[in-house]
């Protein structure tokens, strides 16, 4: 292919018909052709690009340190579909995949290079759209049980019934409560959260219902309670299983009659707050044990939502990792966009007693340590890092362990195979086969 042919009208027409951006450079890295797609992706008009150095036009993340065209020029190896980003005329980072090749004249002399690049923004956009399908009011999941909850939540939110959210610590109970509030007719009111397990009984009572000045020693002036503050909004009572029997009685009355009296007051106040409760304990068991009132249990359990722990929805881990990477990237203004396959495997192997909150903390931990663009196993907390492979050489194999167990049981029964087989839970012919395979002599 000659440079003359490249620069004639026919070549331009062909290049302009391609959806990928294409530019060619001469021996001095000056741009000689720049197709229509290249104009669209970079935002730079062809007439401004032609004759400029390619790095001034293309402005890719690799221009300075690892130019793909230079690599191809020096090694003869083409680059295919390498993903990088460029900065377009508006200052936006545009993800592109690039491919390179060298250009030679009829004599085989290198006269420049060609680079094609594909805009990945739309793919990125589609990926985000897909993520949106799995995102519901800041809750990320593609787990079937969670998607069922997403589906039913708008309907549940419309009713004014009390909702009980059950789930282990860190499963996102408060996020669900906020989603219900946002979807409900109370959305214009406040959301007031009270962690019932964090306060002693007397303080919790004052916190929930408020008090009048002089109600107790330090009550110098009136203080409205959380029920009053949540009026026309939503009150979220977390850790409801931790409240005392005395307070359970008072709470039951609020739920039944929508009225309460602040401490030290004779005036009865009414509340229109929507009540959402949550617990990480098994309330039914507490009712059976007599530590939670049955009538209150049924009053708060009008609608029940059970959130699965993260170990039962591990398919969400990659989604959640992406979500937290994006969250911390904008929060901490770091450009960590990916996680290595090994690190993801380590995350998938973990059981998460702390659920999604634990995963969030792990990613935050990795963000602090990671100075590259990808999180690796070395950035994970120590308890998640895979053990080194080296010590495995000294570890006994499964066959060795099996032989040890069989031999010790045989010794225990003085070589009696029938007794040994019975203790091992296998037929004596199976034991005999195993002994033969493992080379075990029957001890005398």
């Amino acid at each position: 292919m000659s440079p003359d042919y490249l620069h004639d009208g026919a070549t331009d027409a062909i290049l302009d018909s391609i959806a990928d951006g294409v530019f060619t450079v001469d021996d001095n890295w000056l741009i000689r052709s720049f197709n229509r797609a290249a104009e669209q992706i970079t935002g730079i008009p062809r007439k401004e690009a032609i004759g400029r150095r390619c790095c001034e036009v293309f402005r890719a993340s690799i221009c300075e340190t690892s130019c793909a065209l230079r690599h191809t020029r020096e090694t003869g190896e083409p680059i295919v579909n390498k993903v990088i980003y460029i900065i377009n005329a508006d200052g936006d980072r545009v993800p592109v995949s690039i491919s390179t090749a060298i250009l030679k004249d009829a004599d085989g002399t290198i006269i420049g290079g060609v680079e094609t690049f594909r805009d990945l923004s739309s793919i990125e956009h589609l990926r985000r759209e897909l993520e949106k399908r799995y995102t519901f009011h800041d809750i990320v999941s593609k787990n079937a049980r969670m998607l069922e909850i997403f589906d039913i939540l708008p309907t549940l939110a419309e009713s004014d019934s009390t909702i009980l959210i059950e789930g282990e610590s860190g499963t996102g109970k408060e996020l669900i409560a906020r989603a219900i509030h946002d979807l409900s007719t109370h959305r214009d009111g406040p959301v007031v959260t009270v962690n019932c397990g964090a306060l002693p009984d007397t303080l919790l009572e004052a916190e929930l219902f408020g008090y009048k000045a002089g109600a107790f020693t330090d009550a110098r002036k009136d203080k409205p309670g959380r029920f009053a503050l949540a009026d026309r909004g939503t009150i979220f009572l977390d850790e409801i299983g931790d409240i005392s029997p005395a307070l359970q009685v008072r709470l039951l009355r609020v739920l039944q009659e929508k009225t309460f009296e602040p401490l030290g007051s004779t005036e009865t106040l009414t509340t229109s707050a929507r009540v959402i409760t949550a617990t990480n304990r098994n309330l039914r068991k507490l009712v059976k044990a007599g530590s939670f009132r049955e009538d209150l249990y049924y009053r708060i359990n009008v609608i029940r939502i059970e959130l699965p722990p993260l170990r039962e929805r591990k398919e969400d881990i990659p989604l959640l990792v992406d979500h937290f990477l994006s969250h911390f990237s904008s929060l901490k203004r770091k450009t960590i966009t990916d996680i290595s396959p090994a690190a993801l495997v380590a995350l998938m192997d973990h059981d998460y007693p702390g659920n999604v909150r634990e995963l969030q903390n792990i990613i935050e931990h990795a963000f602090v340590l990671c100075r590259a663009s990808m999180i690796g196993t070395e950035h994970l907390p120590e308890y998640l890092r895979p053990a080194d492979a080296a010590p495995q050489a000294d570890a006994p194999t499964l066959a060795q362990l099996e032989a040890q167990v069989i031999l010790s049981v045989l010794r225990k029964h003085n070589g009696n195979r029938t007794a040994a087989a019975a203790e091992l839970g296998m037929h004596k012919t199976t034991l005999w086969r195993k002994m033969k395979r493992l080379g075990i002599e029957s001890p005398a």
Partner: protein
Amino acid sequence: MLDTASKLLLCDLDSGQTVGTQTIELDGPDLNERAKLICTLGIRTLLCGAVSRLFHQLLEAHHVQVIPWLGGPVEDILRGYTNGTLEQERYRLPGCGRRLRCRQAGRGRGADTSGGFGQSARRRGGQGRRGNYRKKQE
């Protein structure tokens, strides 16, 4: 591209003359760390080629004036800076007309090169590579 530039050239300017230069290595992709380093070096004005909007905003948040989208040899850019002629088309990277509109619409400090320079008693400036320039104003 400033976001990934590996070097930063600090220039001391006195009455429009370069009186000292120093090259600083930049490492890692963390834009916040880069912005902090630039701020720590006392750089008040930074001349560069391409820069992402995110990094530009970050530098402005660290009170660094950014004059971006400049192209050409270092000496020419420094001359343009001291002469107050950086707005001339010959210093602009391709596609700058579109950016200027964006600049006027949203930026401000980083794009305004009309005042300030040429009057300070002493300035410092810098270069990452051909086309990336940083200046520190004291």
